[in-house]
């Protein structure tokens, strides 16, 4: 199975097969299977420490797993946005892109045109001479994504591109992401925003290095075990451990797929919360401390 130069050929996919990653004693990724296809946006969700960054680093080639296989197209065909934007604070916008272009061997003319077009569309065309460190968070992230996709990679790996970014910049970022996917790239993005996960074609839910759920948003919701009801206050006793607050009311999860009278239809946020909660309850028996 060789990687093609152009993205989008049938049968290609990038991802991991049964990958484990260890840092000292901790298992950061625990037998993770993940698949990203060209022309699609895949979201990886989970809290801090869930393993999202570790998974993305494996995909980008910054980390080798202890076991399992990583399918990736190689450095020339991979674009990566690390958690810290990867932009040099003491180089200007133009200089940052010039460095990337040189590193990926993009002809200068083509780099200028493509860079100019992407910058303009992302609202960064008038700050070409501004230093990376002087850009606002949203602008720096946009620049980081542009730098990552400048060489038209077959696999675009973005670590939390929109965390902490204002909604206007976030719209611009999603335009860039859509543009990359429209061009045939497989886009993998880590996010803690579930509304963004819903915008992706498919979602991978991680918690403590393990896959809790994967598939399209609809599939994940459909696969949620048990039922949800809504209460005005946190229930007393054991049921209280299966409840969480959302928008002023309380969601109570009943793991037994009992009768569906009075239940609500869960959304992706509910399904993900249930998955995390289920794992937590399985780890901590009744009477133990909550997280």
């Amino acid at each position, binding site marked *: 199975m060789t990687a093609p130069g152009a993205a989008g050929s049938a049968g290609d996919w990038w991802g991991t097969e049964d990958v484990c990653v260890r840092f000292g004693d901790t298992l950061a990724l625990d037998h993770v299977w993940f698949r990203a296809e060209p022309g699609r946006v895949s979201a990886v969700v989970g809290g801090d420490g869930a393993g999202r960054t570790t998974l993305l680093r494996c995909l980008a080639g910054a980390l080798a797993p202890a076991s399992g296989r990583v399918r990736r197209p190689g*450095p020339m065909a991979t674009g990566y946005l*690390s958690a810290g934007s990867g932009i040099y604070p003491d180089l200007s916008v133009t200089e940052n892109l010039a460095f990337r272009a040189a590193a990926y061997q993009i002809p200068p003319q083509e780099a200028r045109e493509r860079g100019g077009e992407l910058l303009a569309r992302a609202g960064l065309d008038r700050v070409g001479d501004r230093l990376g460190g002087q850009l606002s968070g949203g602008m720096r992230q946009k620049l980081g994504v542009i730098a990552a996709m400048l060489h038209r990679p077959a696999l675009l790996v973005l670590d939390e591109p929109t965390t902490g970014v204002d909604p206007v910049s976030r719209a611009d970022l999603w335009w860039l992401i859509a543009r990359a996917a429209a061009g045939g790239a497989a886009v993998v993005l880590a996010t803690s925003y579930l509304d963004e996960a819903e915008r992706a074609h498919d979602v991978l839910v991680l918690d403590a290095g393990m896959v809790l759920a994967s598939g399209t948003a609809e599939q994940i919701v459909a696969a949620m075990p048990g039922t949800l009801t809504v209460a005005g206050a946190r229930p007393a006793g054991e049921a209280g451990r299966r409840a969480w607050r959302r928008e002023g009311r309380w969601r109570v999860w009943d793991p037994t797929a009992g009768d569906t009278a009075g239940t609500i239809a869960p959304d992706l946020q509910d399904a993900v919360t249930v998955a995390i909660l289920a794992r937590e309850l399985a780890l901590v028996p009744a009477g133990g401390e909550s997280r």
Partner: protein
Amino acid sequence: MWAMIVKEFRQLRRDRRTLAMMIVMPVVLLIVFGYAASFDVTTIPTVAAGPEAGQVTHLVGEPFHVVATEPSQGRAWAEQQLRDGNAAVAVVTGDGRPQVLIDGSQLFTAKAAIAELSAAAAKAAVHGAAAGGQATPPGSQPQPVVTVLYNPDLNTSDIMIPGLAGVVLVFVGTIITSLGVVRERQSGTLEQLAVMPLKPRDVFLGKIGPYFAVAALDLAIVVSIGVGLFGVPFRGSLAVFALGALLFLFVTLGIGVLISSVSENQGQAIQLAFMVTLPQILLSGLIFPLSSIAIGVRWISYLLPLTYFNEISRGVMLRAEPLSSLWQPFLFLALLGAIVFTLASLRFRAYLAPAAPRGGTGSPRSAQKVTSAASAPSGSAG
């Protein structure tokens, strides 16, 4: 206010590097100034040549310490001994008055030697006057002809500026380089470099290349100004000097990269660089002559690279010392350079991508199989 004090103490207790600096530094300085900082010269290595060489040993007392006598050799040999740094004073006996040659590039030793000889001459004159007013009473030695070689005016700048050349290289090599490499870690761009199709070797060399060039430029400027403005002589081979500087740069740049590989931010890097540089400036013979540093502390000087570069730069600039007699410092620097530079590039590689896949870059790669064993790759938390 008390809460603030308690908090600061707690934070300080955990900041090991600052603690080390605050406690270790004064102790180091104390040792240095107690045992090392001295301009007093206690031993003056001396050689004697000519037919009466053997007698010189008996005639000269402390602090002169005769290390070689060659009755068959003459002035040329004596000068060579001074040039090669084997002695600070040479006595050449033969017809007529004995000649005393003093190495002016060892400033304090030379001054001490002159002081001793003046004192001896004064004593002989007094002796002669007491013996009846004759200038050279029978039985006494004729007055020697004293010549100061290499730095006849005993200028301080002549010996400081070659030393300064070394300091410049230490500064740029160690301090500036460590900052430049740590900056990559601080701005979070290191991971990007790990993922790009760049060979680690290219990244490493590309990263330190500019500092190499800047250090070389700085060196050229310092030497030019020294020679042009302060009249410091440059008597020896430019090629030998350049080679010595090159080897020394490998050492200091390597140390700079090593420092950055154990520092998380520029503050830490500067602290460590400072702790590594200060002893070199104080103990390498730059300010305080090596021979006046107490032996118990002097062994430290012999571990410091700057000590050896000082030998090279002073020897070449002031005494036209050839490569053949400088082989010791060159060998030391070459070995140290090789070790430090290799270590630095290995650490930089690991630093760039703690568990990155090995192998070629730039070529499309398909499935990559890494089977687990009992061992697990170590690395920092992702």
